[in-house]
C-alpha cells in the first residue's frame, strides 16, 4: 500500500521515524523549531521531541555546520538544515576540510554520520544568491555522499538511509519539489545509496537526470513519445555513490545518452558521467553524448532570463533529436 503525499511531508516522515527510532538523531537549523522551517519539513517535530532535539540556531552557518560535524564525530546523528545551498558556502571548511577527511585522517577510526539537508535550484525569481545548483562542489570532494532525490518516495527512503549510515551526507533537496506529490510506500521505506531508479523505461535513448530535472525530463520523454521516440529516463538518485551499472546497462541497450543537469555546464557532474560512459561504453555509442545543462552564468532575477539560464523541456527534446539523427559511427565514416 502507498499514500500520495508531498515531498516535504515525505522528508518529515523520514526525520520523524528516525528520531523515534534513534535518540541520538537531532535537528538544528534556522527557524526549524516552533516555526517548522521555511519549507515546513520540520513542522510538529518540536512538540513531539522537545527543544533538546529540535533547535533553532542563530544565523551562523559555519558554526552550525561545524557543530553538526563535531556532534557526529562524537557519536550523535545530527541533521543540520541550511536554508539555501548558497549559504552552505559559509560552512565549506567544516564540510570539505573536516567532515570529508576525518575518516581517512584517523586511519579509519573516526566516522562522521553528519547529514546536511539543504535545497538548491532555480525557482521563481529568487536571483543569483538563492538559486544555485552546487552539487558538483560536493561531488568533487572525496568523502562526501551526495544525494538528490526527485520524488517524495525517494526523499523519504534516502533520508532514512542517510540517518543510518556513517559518512557525511549532502542531502540536496530542490525548492521546486517540496510541494510536488507522489506515492510513498507504507511502512518501513529505506533506499540504499548507489541504487539508481528507472523513472521511465525505454529503448531508443538513455536520458540521465536528477532532482528537479527529472519531472522536466519525463515531460520531454512524453513529447518524444508522441514522435515515436521511446526514451529511458534514469535517476541515479545519489551522485555519490553513483549507480554506474544502471547507466552503462541502459546505454548498452539504447546506444545513445543525453545527460540533463540544472547546474552550470562547466565542471559539472554531467561532464563526469559523460566521461565515465565514454571510458566504459565507447564502442556501444552510436552518437556523441549530449549534455543539456545550465548556462555558465549566475542566475539572473528576470524570470525570462532565469528560464533561459537552465534547461527547459524543449532543450531536452532537441538534444534527444540530435543524438537520434546523428548517424551510427560506421555509417558516418562512409
Amino acid at each position: 500500500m502507498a499514500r500520495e503525499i508531498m515531498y516535504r511531508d515525505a522528508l518529515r516522515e523520514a526525520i520523524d521515524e528516525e528520531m523515534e527510532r534513534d535518540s541520538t538523531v537531532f535537528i538544528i537549523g534556522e527557524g526549524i523549531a516552533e516555526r517548522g522551517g521555511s519549507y515546513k519539513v520540520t513542522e510538529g517535530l518540536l512538540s513531539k521531541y522537545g527543544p533538546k532535539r529540535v533547535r533553532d540556531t542563530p544565523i551562523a552557518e559555519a558554526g552550525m555546520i561545524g557543530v553538526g560535524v563535531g556532534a557526529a564525530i562524537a557519536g550523535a546523528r545530527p541533521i543540520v538544515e541550511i536554508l539555501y545551498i548558497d549559504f552552505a558556502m559559509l560552512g565549506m571548511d567544516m564540510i570539505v576540510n573536516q567532515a570529508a577527511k576525518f575518516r581517512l585522517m584517523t586511519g579509519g577510526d573516526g566516522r562522521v554520520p553528519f547529514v546536511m539537508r539543504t535545497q538548491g535550484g532555480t525557482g521563481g525569481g529568487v536571483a543569483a544568491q538563492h538559486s544555485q545548483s552546487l552539487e558538483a562542489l560536493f561531488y568533487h570532494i572525496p568523502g562526501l555522499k551526495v544525494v538528490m532525490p526527485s520524488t517524495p518516495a525517494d526523499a523519504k527512503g534516502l533520508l532514512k538511509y542517510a540517518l543510518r549510515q556513517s559518512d557525511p551526507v549532502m542531502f540536496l533537496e530542490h525548492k521546486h519539489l517540496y510541494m510536488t506529490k507522489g506515492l510513498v510506500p507504507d511502512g518501513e521505506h529505506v533506499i540504499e545509496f548507489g541504487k539508481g531508479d528507472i523513472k521511465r523505461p525505454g529503448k531508443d535513448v538513455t536520458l540521465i537526470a536528477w532532482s528537479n530535472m527529472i519531472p522536466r525530463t519525463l515531460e520531454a520523454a512524453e513529447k518524444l513519445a508522441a514522435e515515436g521516440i521511446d526514451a529511458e529516463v534514469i535517476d541515479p538518485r545519489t551522485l555519490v555513490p553513483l549507480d554506474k551499472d544502471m547507466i552503462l546497462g541502459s546505454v548498452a541497450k539504447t546506444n545513445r545518452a543525453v545527460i540533463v543537469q540544472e547546474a552550470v555546464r562547466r565542471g559539472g557532474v554531467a561532464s563526469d558521467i559523460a566521461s565515465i560512459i565514454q571510458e566504459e561504453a565507447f564502442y556501444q555509442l552510436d552518437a556523441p553524448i549530449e549534455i543539456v545543462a545550465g548556462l555558465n552564468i549566475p542566475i539572473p532575477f528576470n524570470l525570462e532570463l532565469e528560464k533561459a539560464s537552465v534547461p527547459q523541456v524543449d532543450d531536452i527534446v532537441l538534444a534527444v533529436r540530435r543524438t537520434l539523427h546523428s548517424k551510427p559511427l560506421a555509417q558516418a565514416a562512409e
Partner: protein
Amino acid sequence: MAAQAQKANAPSRELLEKLFRTAYKIRVFESEGIKLYRQGLIRGYFHPYLGQEGIATGVCAALQEGDFIASTHRGHGHCIAWGADVKRMVAELLQKETGYCRGYGGSMHIADIRAGNLGANGIVGAGTPLGVGAALANQIKGNDAVTVTFSTDGASNNGTFLESLNLAAIWNLSYVLVVENNQYAVSTRIEESTRDVDLYKRGLAIGVESHQVDGNDSLAVYHLMQDAVEKCRRGEGPILIEAKTYRHMGHHVNDPGKYMPADTLAYYKERDPVDRARNALVEIVGLDQAEIEAIENEIKQEFEDAVEFSKASREITLAEFNEFVEAY
C-alpha cells in the same frame, strides 16, 4: 596555626607529581622529536609545544575519562596530557601503521576518537565548532561529559570562534574554551591582530564566564580548570579560559623565530612551566634531586622505547590503502 592551615590547603604530592610528569613528558617529546625531525625521520609540519606545556598539563589534569578534547596544529602537548600512548604518537609521526592514525594523519591530525580526543587540526580555528559539537552530542545523549577545545590567539579572530562559543552559550553546553594566548600567529604579534590583547573579554561580551590565567603555571591552570569543570558538570557552562604564554622557539621546527625579542623570550624562559612544576615538587613536597632524576629518566626511557617501537613498526601497505580507496 597559620602554617598548618596552609599545609591543609597545599596541593597533594600526587597532583604535583602528575603535573610535573605530564609537563616533562611533553618537554621530552618535543625536544627529542625535533631531533628526529632533524635526522629526517619525521617529515611535514612539526609545531612544538615547547614553553606552553603548563596549559595542556593543567587543563587535562582536571578532566576525566569520558570527557572530550579538540586540539590545534600545535597538538602534541594536548595529546600527551590527555594520556596518549607515546609509542603510538611517535609511530604516527614516523608514518607507521602502529600510529594513532596508521600514518594517515601525521602531526597535524593525530586523533584518538575512541578516547574522546577529536584530534589535532590543520585548520586554525576548526577545533572550536567541532568541540562545541561534541559538547552538544553529550548534552543530547544526556551524560555529564565536559568538552574542551584548545584554541589559540590566532583562532580568536576567526568568525567561528564567536559563532561556536555563542552556540555553546545559548545552549548552556558543558564546554570549556581554552585560549592559549602565546601572543603570536606565526610571526604576527597579537598587537597587530587585535586592539585588545586580553582575549578572555571576548567571552564576557557574549555572556560567557571568562577568566585569565598564567599559562606557565600548571597548578594555577589546574585550579581554574577544576572549578570550570565542576561548574560545567552542574550545567553552568560554557566557560572561557585565556592562558597567557609564550613559545620557546619559532612557529615550527624550521622557523628560527628571529622576530621574537630576546628579552621577552628570556622573561618567559625564566618562568618556564616545566621548571615551575619541578620546583613545586621540590619545594612543596620536598622531593630530592635523585627522586626528580628518577622520574625524568623514566620518562626519557619511555620516549626512547617509543622510538625503538616505531622504527621497528611497518608502514601501511598499498593493498591496505586500496581498501580505503574503495571505501571512499
